[in-house]
């Protein structure tokens, strides 16, 4: 058994490592791509002009979805506000967790969907929204609901929505730069003939390799960050409720349910308590490989991590 503070610290460190890796990767990629672009278009400053341009485009696209995240998601999902009378457990559990965490009370919404799931969104704790499906509210007991809502509230407390938006801007930036470089290489460089040195050739080859590979790698790191933040939110949930059992049995119930969520789309997938896309997961190495492309860690791994925090033992069966 590990104590919750150790788990939280370990999570923070691991999350920081992944984020630093991502930042370093973005910096290197942007440098290489901009050098190559600069070489093609004869722009000697190193092509930083393109980077600025790409950053602005990628930024505008993601900023809108970030700043209005609370409203956009709600209109997509067709959610309605939860009242204390109609959804007593949902409303009061959220109220209690807010007392325990010292955060402002998020807006609570319910989506009419029988697939059990929940998500949090909003750019900061003051604009936070927590949304649950009717399936979740029907199927879970109050203790289980407490675990799930504490998980969502931890996302809010950890500013995960902000982090994911920043990461999305960077992934968009790399995708744009890579795309431009590949397009430029179709037409051939303006300076590639008269400036025939070795450095130029190396930069070009490197640039094209990066242009092809880096968007995929950037997305993989983005997903790794997303999975790491899920573990963090699970630990945050336990530190708030001190009842790992509630979240464990909630996750078990959610994973047993095979219904996919209708309102989910790829843009919001990382916000949910469990991946809204249900499908058969592979075994062994295939499972490990497909896991790279998931927004959420496998539920079994999350449950195992939660059991490590509790003094109960998992029941084999």
């Amino acid at each position, binding site marked *: 058994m590990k104590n919750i503070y150790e788990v939280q610290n370990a999570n923070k460190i691991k999350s920081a490592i992944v984020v630093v890796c991502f930042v370093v990767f973005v910096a290197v990629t942007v440098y290489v791509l901009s050098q190559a672009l600069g070489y093609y278009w004869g722009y000697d400053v190193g092509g930083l002009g393109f980077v600025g341009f790409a950053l602005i485009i990628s930024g505008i696209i993601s900023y809108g979805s970030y700043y209005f995240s609370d409203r956009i998601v709600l209109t997509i999902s067709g959610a309605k506000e939860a009242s204390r009378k109609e959804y*007593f*457990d949902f409303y*009061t*559990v959220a*109220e*209690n*967790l807010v*007392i*325990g*965490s*010292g955060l402002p009370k998020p807006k609570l919404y319910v989506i009419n969907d029988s697939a059990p799931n929940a998500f949090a969104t909003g750019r900061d704790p003051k604009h936070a929204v927590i949304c649950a499906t009717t399936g979740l509210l029907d199927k879970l007991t*109050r203790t289980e609901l407490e675990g799930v809502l504490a998980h969502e509230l931890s996302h809010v407390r950890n500013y995960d929505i902000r982090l994911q938006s920043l990461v999305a801007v960077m992934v968009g930036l790399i995708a744009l730069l890579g795309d431009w470089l590949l397009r430029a290489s179709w037409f051939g460089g303006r300076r590639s003939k008269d400036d025939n040195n070795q450095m130029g050739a190396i930069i070009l080859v490197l640039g094209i390799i990066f242009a092809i590979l880096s968007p995929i790698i950037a997305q993989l790191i983005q997903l790794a960050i997303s999975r790491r933040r899920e573990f963090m939110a699970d630990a945050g949930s336990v*530190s*708030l409720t*001190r009842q790992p059992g509630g979240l464990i049995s909630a996750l078990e119930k959610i994973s047993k349910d095979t219904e996919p969520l209708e309102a989910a789309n790829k843009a919001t997938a990382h916000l949910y308590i469990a991946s809204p896309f249900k499908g058969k997961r592979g075994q062994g190495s295939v499972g490990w490989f497909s896991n790279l492309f998931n927004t959420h860690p496998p539920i079994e791994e999350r449950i195992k991590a939660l059991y490590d925090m509790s003094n109960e033992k998992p029941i084999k069966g």
Partner: protein
Amino acid sequence: MIIYVIIVLVVLAVWVISIYNFFVSSKTRIKASIQEIGNQLKRQSDLIPNLESSVKGYLSHEKGILQMLSDARKLISTGKDASAKIAELLPKLQVVVESNPELKGNTVVTNLMDELRDTADKVMYARRLLIDLTADFNVKRATFPSSIIAGLFKFEEMKGLETSDTGVHLSVSELETKSPKINL
């Protein structure tokens, strides 16, 4: 050279200020969280008597109905000629049943239990906030390098939720090691 010294000093000053502000604002938040416990306790003491009386009122009304029903059943099961009494009882029963198409005692009690659990949770979470805030404060106060600032400005250790450090709650008796049985 002098510019580096200034940069280091500015960074240091910013750090000292941020740590100092952490301690001061934590202290304020700890005080507020203590008030929050009082607030929740007050809510509880206002709420429970009201809930009790309204549920009692409803249940006694329903008890009357159930009493009448069981009286009628008893009369029939005795086998004696009780038609006169039944005739007297029937119209009353009809009125009662017609005005209460369904007996709601079950949901009323469930609602009461929900409210009771909720209010207990609220008080528990209010205490949790106090415990967490004081733990954060005391950890920062004791760990290096923020302990320097705490020492410099003489921040005392916060007490948090006061629990007596002697007594039966620190030991587990033989009886408590067994899972409690419920008799209904």
